[in-house]
């Protein structure tokens, strides 16, 4: 087994059902918003984001003795195509993984979508925006802010999983101990997540910075405006 999202049997039915309903509502909103705002010619870029995240999730890297990690992809998708389209891309990856590759439980699909697609994209993008404002409107800020936001997201996701487990977990275990273990290993996974996300966004920034949703206000025109502001 080279990848594992939340399987069936970890978290009880009612909690999974609530997560499923939240996931359906959130994804429907994302589809609506994406088709309202995205230009037709940018649609294949969202497809590419999904394809790339699928491929990258197969590349488990070592994080500690006997443990591996893989990209979650929320920040990569959100910075590249926006949090709405990005959440949609990650959702499709999770659905394909659950239905075709038996990775991630069917009843747990809503939990996985909420954690990795919805929270991963939107919380990730919020962290990205905050950092980018701190770093200034330069292309290197886009890459750096994306990388650091991508480091933070697996930690947030691991805390969210612990909260979900505290609500509906099927085993009686120490939640504090679970939280510590989850955050510890996902902080290490975050290093890989940050590096891969930074590399991928950095590569797109050298080729087509205008395609990077999170860099729409960064570029030659934005830079010129800043220079004018600085010299006037």
């Amino acid at each position: 087994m080279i990848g594992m999202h939340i399987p069936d049997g970890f978290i009880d039915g009612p909690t999974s059902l609530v997560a499923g309903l939240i996931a359906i509502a959130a994804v429907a909103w994302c589809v609506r918003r994406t088709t309202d705002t995205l230009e037709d010619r940018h649609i294949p870029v969202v497809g590419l984001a999904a394809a790339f995240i699928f491929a990258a999730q197969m590349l488990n890297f070592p994080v500690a003795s006997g443990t591996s990690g893989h990209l979650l992809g929320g920040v990569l998708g959100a910075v590249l195509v926006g949090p709405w389209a990005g959440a949609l891309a990650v959702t499709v990856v999770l659905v394909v993984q659950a239905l075709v590759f038996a990775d991630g439980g069917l009843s747990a699909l809503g939990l996985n979508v909420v954690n990795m697609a919805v929270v991963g994209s939107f919380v990730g993008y919020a962290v990205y925006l905050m950092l980018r404002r701190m770093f200034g409107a330069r292309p290197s800020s886009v890459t750096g802010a994306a990388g650091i936001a991508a480091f933070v997201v697996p930690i947030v996701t691991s805390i969210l999983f612990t909260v979900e487990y505290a609500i509906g977990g099927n085993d009686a275990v120490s939640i504090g101990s679970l939280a510590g273990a989850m955050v510890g290993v996902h902080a290490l996974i975050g290093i890989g997540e940050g590096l891969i996300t930074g590399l991928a966004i950095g590569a797109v920034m050298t080729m087509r910075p205008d395609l990077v949703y999170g860099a729409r206000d960064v570029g030659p025109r934005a830079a010129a405006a800043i220079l004018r502001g600085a010299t006037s």
Partner: protein
Amino acid sequence: MRRLSIAAFVLLGLTVAVALVILVAPNANANPDGLERVAAEQGIDTGAVDHALADSPLADYGVDGVDHRYAGTWVAGLVGVAVAFTIVTALLLVVRRARGSAPEASSSATA
């Protein structure tokens, strides 16, 4: 440097995804991932059940009946890349058509 068209950019990106599947995926770290490891250590996996689709032909990113480590991963990875790209692109195109015109009147699906 001449700017890549969107179609060329997407093709390049898909090529990178395919290259990662072919060259890197078969050598990915096979240890349990973070969640799986913590679940076993903390004892939260006692209720875990086998995946309902565990017997499907591409379960666990391999091909049922193919023992060759590379070939199974390659087929599974290539199918996943193709399916993920196609579903997302088709879904957005179909919903866009159903919901009316695009913003900024850009009607060209290729550029």
